[in-house]
């Protein structure tokens, strides 16, 4: 059983990405209603955080919030978990036990991993949600419950319906207000904000100052794929804060998995391409253009868009910079400027160190 713990809306990081801001605006709107919400997102994208936030911004916030992962229980156990049981209903049922629905009376129930609920249980769930009543296992009377239902799913339920693994009627009952959480790799612009937030939070619990973060680490974080999404980032930050001995987070602090993941496509991959048995064409112009635009983006970023200063940094004439910006198609502020900037900074650093 998961408990909401010390959830506070202040502990929720919105991030800069348009998608997340849209989601938070939507949460504000739907928290006023009592309709079912379904939150779809990969593991670690923050489904429970959003469910918590919905509850805590609603008029039910002083009532209980009960989160339960449907994946935790076997087919038989899930019914007693959700609906409770009467004394003597089965061997070991030595006393009455209220289910999660009853425990959430007046508040919100968050049924996570709804995609793991077996078909036989889905029909019982549908009945409970539709009639707003539950029957404890072994009981003859129904108990009416006033509960807002939020469900979480890591799979696309529509597809599961099409494949026959999820009941269509339950799907429509649950899918009144859908929220889709993007994976972290699709909103990389939020990684720096989240990183800083987690470092600060874990440093506070350890009673130390938040560590400084090197550009190489930021670069690695922005390039890594984060298959475990925000949860993985959070754990990475926790591990680093707990093990850091020098007050600065450097590449050496990172798990090698992140380092190798960030290095992909590896610099070695280029070499591999070149030494491959079957020759693969490499466009020199494209590669050079890539390097050029990265460096220009970096220079423009660190000089706050001042082109004269950027030209100085790159040791080229101001007029040349203008031409090259046009050639690289950097006229508009590129959306990946942050990442490109950090990458360029990383490429630049060893050279600076070498020339120093």
């Amino acid at each position, binding site marked *: 059983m998961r408990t909401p713990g010390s959830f506070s809306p202040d502990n929720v990081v919105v991030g800069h990405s348009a998608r997340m801001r849209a989601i938070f605006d939507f949460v504000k709107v739907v928290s006023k209603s009592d309709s079912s919400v379904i939150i779809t997102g990969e593991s670690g994208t923050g489904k429970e955080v959003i469910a918590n936030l919905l509850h805590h911004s609603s008029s039910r916030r002083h009532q209980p919030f009960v989160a339960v992962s449907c994946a935790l229980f076997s087919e038989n156990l899930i019914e007693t978990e959700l609906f409770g049981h009467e004394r003597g209903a089965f061997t070991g049922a030595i006393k009455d036990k209220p289910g999660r629905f009853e425990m959430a009376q007046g508040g919100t129930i968050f049924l996570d991993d709804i995609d793991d609920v077996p078909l036989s249980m889905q029909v019982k769930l549908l009945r409970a949600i539709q009639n707003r009543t539950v029957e404890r296992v072994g009981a003859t009377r129904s108990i009416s419950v006033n509960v807002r239902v939020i469900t979480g799913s890591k799979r696309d339920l529509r597809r599961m319906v099409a494949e026959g693994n999820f009941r269509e009627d339950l799907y429509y009952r649950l899918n009144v207000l859908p929220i889709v959480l993007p994976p972290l790799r699709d909103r990389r612009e939020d990684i720096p904000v989240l990183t800083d937030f987690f470092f600060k939070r874990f440093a506070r619990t350890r009673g130390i100052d938040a560590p400084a973060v090197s550009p190489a680490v930021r*670069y690695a974080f922005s390039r890594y794929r984060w298959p475990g999404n925000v949860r993985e980032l959070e754990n990475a930050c926790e591990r680093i804060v707990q*093990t850091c001995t020098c007050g600065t987070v450097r590449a050496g602090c*990172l798990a090698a998995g992140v*380092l190798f993941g960030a*290095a992909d496509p590896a610099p070695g991959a280029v070499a591999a391409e070149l030494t491959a048995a079957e020759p693969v064409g490499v466009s020199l112009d494209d590669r050079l253009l890539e390097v050029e635009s990265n460096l220009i983006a970096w220079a423009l970023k660190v000089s706050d868009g001042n082109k004269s200063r950027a030209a100085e940094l790159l040791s080229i004439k101001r007029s040349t910079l203008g031409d090259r910006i046009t050639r690289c198609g950097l006229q508009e502020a590129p959306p990946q400027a942050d990442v490109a900037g950090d990458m360029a900074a990383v490429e630049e650093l060893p050279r600076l160190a070498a020339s120093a």
Partner: protein
Amino acid sequence: MVSRDQIETVLGRIRPLMQADGGDIVLVDVRGNNAHVRLTGMCAGCPSAHMTLYMGVEMALRDEIKEFEELVVV
């Protein structure tokens, strides 16, 4: 018998990031199917860096080079 080149190729992937932070992972010696490496620079004295790199790099080497056996941090 693993070759120096094979190991350097794997290490080379994370090297730019290490170097950007004023550190490096140096391949000191290859003995049989084992590699001896040393951390230098900023992270050389950090026990955590040794631990994470030791485990992660060894795993990466084993993944990519079938016959690789052991990474020794010297």
